[in-house]
């Protein structure tokens, strides 16, 4: 089909009706004019009408010829081809369903992955002029050590808040808080942000205003901004809530604003409160992030220079030691967060691409098989003079119909997958909305079209290349050893097996990583332990006394619930990120105190018993440790090993602020999540435990700004019943304290391993898909070759040939091919799985067992897939075969 022809075709589709009307009008005009002339020449009216019509000739023939000029017959042929294609597919529903399903799965997977990539990497951020938005990044270099982070302190804020070329806003962490409504309270996500946050992001509030200078400083009037979602959910979209006072964190806050419906923050946030940034308290550590928007009239280079210069002041004020080279810079908004994600998404998308390739190979092989089954039909058509061009057009139409149906199935599957992914990825730092917008739809349509043309090509080439004679001879079930198309199909099997192996090996490595991590000794016994959390960033819990009273009263009540064996409270659980704390350590022999960085956890008596954390020396924290008793601390093995090597740790002291604490016990290490970016996914850090009774009010307030404490309960029985019991017990002590959520220690572990789990699931799913595609592909090839050679096999069996030999002949080539495919795939996998290196734990990329198992599994599965159709030969009745056609 030439381009001109195509244009005419399209035009005729669009204008067919008008063309016919025009033609009709034009010819009627002609005939009527002639009629008039004839009447003028003296003919009677009926006579004239008759003669005009006769002399004009065959009207419909003339019209048909005109249409032909306009390309209309092509349209008709197209429609005929489509009808024919549908009829053909209806006649072999198994084939059609297999192709559409295969294509649907492959396209669906790729649609979902592309939706993800589009949302995270391609689509502009949901803020006006996103290219003017930046994150402020600090880079620290000491010798060969390099660290970059978006974490900032109060000094950086102080140095940058008056910058001329950019507007800067500070933001803090997001954590759960209690929002009072009527007679109860709910647990909502709060983010603390400095003034200017909404202005910098560029989305004005729907109602009210953002925080002003007075509210955003320590001691200012308590204020809150509501998200549009929570405003609608809790306050039913009542605008008069602005200016009203609501109960938040146990005290009244004035609602100053409500965000716009379109506003989408990074992460899940229900309400915002003022950050009150300063260089004291949390501002003395790295607990903020800074975002910046370029002022109009300033160039990015100017802003970069100014931020860098102001950064120098910030580092001086912070007293960064001269051995560290520090630099402040601007990076495009989100670019920093995306760096790690980008690599992972690219790996996942290449895996998805591989699936698409396997799918194509499969479909091409199916089409070839079908092509050879239809070879007699095709050969007959060519022999009878049906032009090659029209044959090609018809086969292309069939491929397109299949492609479009598969694409539609893929779109539907992709939509479902995207829905499932949205919830799953939210936990891994992907906050953007996964939406199948125009680029996604376009890409999906393009891929389906391309793929269908690609696999549609195979039978066309086959049909055109083959002469009529061979076609008629080779067609049907009369052939002996498969002809040229057989060779091509075998190559496709080889490619398919090789690609499947690559995915299988990748999945194997990631699954082994997950298993390795899951089977690490966690250092405690998490079976039958249920945890509950509640926010104590609350005006009623500013004092340590109140907090400890809550802990002991609620624990007493919980212990009375049926099935409960033991209960305790701790700020942190294993697998979580713990509070970082600086302290000094003094051993008995050491005259100097060493500054150490540790993680800190406050616990009530019973914490170690509930979690069955082994005590290695000394004693655990118990009821004797009171506010007025001697200050004590427990350390974990890692801390004792790292900072008190060669000494008796039990005679050492920890100096925590103004308090000197005697180390009274050593407990086993727990798996924690690193606070800094360290090598392993779940590591143990030096840690100390302090009795909750001896925690100061100030320390409680600081810790509860970032973290909600956890109740840990060891109990037997149904999870829901235990959870209700805990809820009831806590509500009995404080009815206004909402319990945020109940989680088992397995849940905790799974969320700590979330990223590895996601990797293993995604790759495992893709590999399973690849495996089933390979299965279908191999089955198809063998089934087809058996069908084609039925007559030959039948004759051989009739003549006394061995059945076993015949079956072996059908199966052997495919098994050999799959061994070849496994070998090639193995070599490719050795090269390609290296990209996974950073995602593995406890297993090398070139792990021999993984390769061996994957290869053996693939060969075994292809052998079974080829044996099943071959065994049908055993049921063959030779006499029937010989009598066939």
């Amino acid at each position, binding site marked *: 089909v030439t381009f001109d022809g195509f244009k005419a075709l399209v035009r005729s589709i669009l204008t067919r009706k008008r063309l016919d009307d025009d033609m009709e009008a034009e010819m009627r*005009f002609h005939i009527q004019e002639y009629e008039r002339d004839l009447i003028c020449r003296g003919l009677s009216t009926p006579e004239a009408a008759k003669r005009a019509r006769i002399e004009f000739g065959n009207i419909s023939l003339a019209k048909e010829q005109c249409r032909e*000029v306009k390309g209309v017959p092509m349209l008709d042929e197209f429609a005929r081809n489509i009808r024919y294609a549908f009829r053909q597919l209806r006649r072999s529903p198994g084939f059609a369903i297999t192709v559409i399903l295969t294509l649907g799965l492959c396209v669906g997977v790729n649609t979902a992955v592309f939706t993800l990539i589009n949302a995270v990497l391609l689509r502009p951020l949901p803020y006006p002029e996103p290219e003017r938005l930046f994150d402020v990044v600090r880079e620290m270099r000491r010798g060969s050590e390099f660290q970059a982070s978006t974490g900032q302190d109060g000094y950086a804020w102080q140095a940058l808040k008056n910058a001329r070329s950019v507007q800067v806003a500070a933001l803090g962490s997001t954590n759960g808080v209690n929002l009072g409504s009527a007679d109860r309270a709910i647990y909502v996500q709060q983010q603390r942000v400095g003034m200017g946050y909404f202005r910098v992001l560029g989305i004005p509030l729907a109602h009210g205003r953002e925080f002003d200078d007075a509210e955003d400083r320590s001691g200012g009037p308590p204020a809150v901004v509501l998200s549009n979602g929570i405003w609608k959910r809790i306050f039913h979209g009542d605008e008069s809530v602005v200016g009203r006072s609501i109960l938040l964190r146990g005290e009244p806050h004035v609602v100053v604003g409500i965000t716009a419906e379109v506003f989408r923050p990074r992460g899940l946030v229900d309400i915002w409160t003022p950050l009150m940034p300063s260089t004291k308290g949390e501002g003395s550590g790295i607990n903020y992030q800074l975002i910046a928007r370029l002022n109009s009239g300033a160039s990015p280079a100017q802003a970069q220079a100014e931020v860098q210069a102001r950064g120098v002041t910030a580092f001086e004020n912070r007293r960064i030691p001269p051995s560290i080279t520090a630099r402040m810079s601007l990076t495009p908004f989100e670019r920093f967060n995306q760096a790690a994600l980008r690599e992972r998404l690219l790996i996942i998308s290449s895996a998805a691409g591989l699936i698409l390739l396997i799918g194509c190979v499969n479909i091409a092989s199916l089409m070839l098989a079908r092509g050879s089954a239809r070879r007699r039909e095709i050969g007959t058509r060519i022999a009878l003079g049906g032009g090659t061009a029209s044959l090609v057009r018809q086969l292309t139409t069939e491929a397109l119909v299949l492609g479009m149906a598969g694409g539609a199935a893929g779109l539907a599957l992709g939509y479902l997958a995207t829905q499932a992914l949205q919830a799953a990825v939210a936990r891994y730092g992907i906050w953007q909305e996964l939406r199948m917008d125009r680029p996604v739809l376009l890409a999906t349509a393009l891929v389906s079209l391309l793929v269908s043309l690609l696999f549609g090509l195979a039978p066309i080439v086959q049909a055109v290349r083959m002469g009529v004679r061979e076609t008629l001879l080779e067609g049907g079930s009369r052939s002996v050893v498969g002809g040229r198309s057989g060779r091509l199909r075998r190559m496709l099997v080889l490619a398919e097996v090789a690609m499947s192996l690559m995915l299988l090996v990748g999945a194997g490595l990631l699954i082994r990583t997950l298993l390795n991590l899951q089977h690490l000794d966690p250092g405690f016994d998490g079976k039958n332990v249920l945890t509950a959390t509640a926010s104590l960033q609350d005006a009623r819990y500013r004092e340590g006394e109140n907090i400890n009273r809550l802990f002991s009263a609620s624990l007493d009540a919980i212990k009375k619930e049926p099935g409960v064996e033991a209960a305790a409270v701790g700020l942190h659980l294993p697998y979580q990120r713990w509070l970082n704390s600086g302290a000094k350590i003094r051993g008995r022999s050491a005259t100097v105190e060493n500054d150490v960085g540790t993680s800190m956890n406050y616990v009530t008596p019973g914490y170690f018993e509930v979690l069955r954390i082994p005590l290695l020396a000394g004693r655990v924290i118990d009821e004797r440790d009171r506010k007025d008793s001697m200050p004590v601390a427990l350390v974990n093995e890692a801390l004792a090993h790292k900072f008190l090597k060669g000494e008796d740790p039990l005679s050492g002291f920890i100096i925590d602020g103004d308090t000197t604490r005697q180390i009274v016990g050593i407990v086993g290490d727990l798996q924690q999540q690193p606070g800094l970016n360290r090598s392993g996914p779940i590591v143990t850090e030096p840690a100390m435990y302090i009795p909750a009774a001896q925690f100061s009010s100030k320390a409680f307030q600081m810790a509860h700004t970032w973290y909600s404490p956890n109740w840990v309960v060891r109990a037997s029985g149904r999870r829901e019943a235990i959870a209700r019991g805990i809820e009831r017990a806590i509500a009995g002590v404080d009815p206004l304290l909402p319990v945020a959520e109940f989680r088992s220690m397995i849940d905790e572990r799974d969320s700590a391993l979330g990223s590895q789990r996601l990797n293993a699931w995604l790759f495992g799913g893709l590999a399973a898909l690849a495996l089933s595609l390979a299965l279908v592909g191999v089955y198809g090839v063998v089934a087809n070759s058996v069908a084609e050679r039925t007559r030959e096999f039948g004759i051989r069996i009739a003549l006394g040939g061995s059945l076993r030999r015949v079956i072996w002949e059908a199966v052997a080539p495919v098994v050999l091919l799959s061994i070849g495919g496994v070998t090639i795939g193995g070599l490719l996998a050795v090269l390609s799985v290296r990209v996974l290196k950073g995602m593995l734990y406890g297993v090398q990329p070139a792990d021999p067992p993984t390769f061996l198992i994957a290869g053996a599994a693939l060969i075994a599965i292809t052998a079974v897939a080829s044996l099943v159709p071959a065994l049908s030969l055993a049921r063959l009745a030779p006499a029937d075969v010989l009598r066939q056609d």
Partner: protein
Amino acid sequence: VNTLADLLPGTLDLLVLKAVSLGALHGYGILLRIQQISQRLLQIEQGSLYPALYRLEHAGLIESEWGVSENNRRAKFYRLTRSGQTRLRKEMQQWTLFSEAVGHVLRALPEET
């Protein structure tokens, strides 16, 4: 009387081009014009005029526009395009050459025998 089918292929196209070169005409008008200037020596099968018109239009040699006929009826008028003019000139030259040549040959033959 000769019908057009008896003439050389492509002749109808040439006649149509010539007819519309003298001004825009509707289909029936073209028919009349050809009959008139050929002094009724050439008869066109009326219906076959239209496929020729569509073909010429598709080739860009003529263009059409709906207008009003001399007796106030809606009709489609055809007009020669620039490339149509060029083609007409070329065809005319070739035709003249061809017919002269054939004429010479036909006239010469009896004298030689």
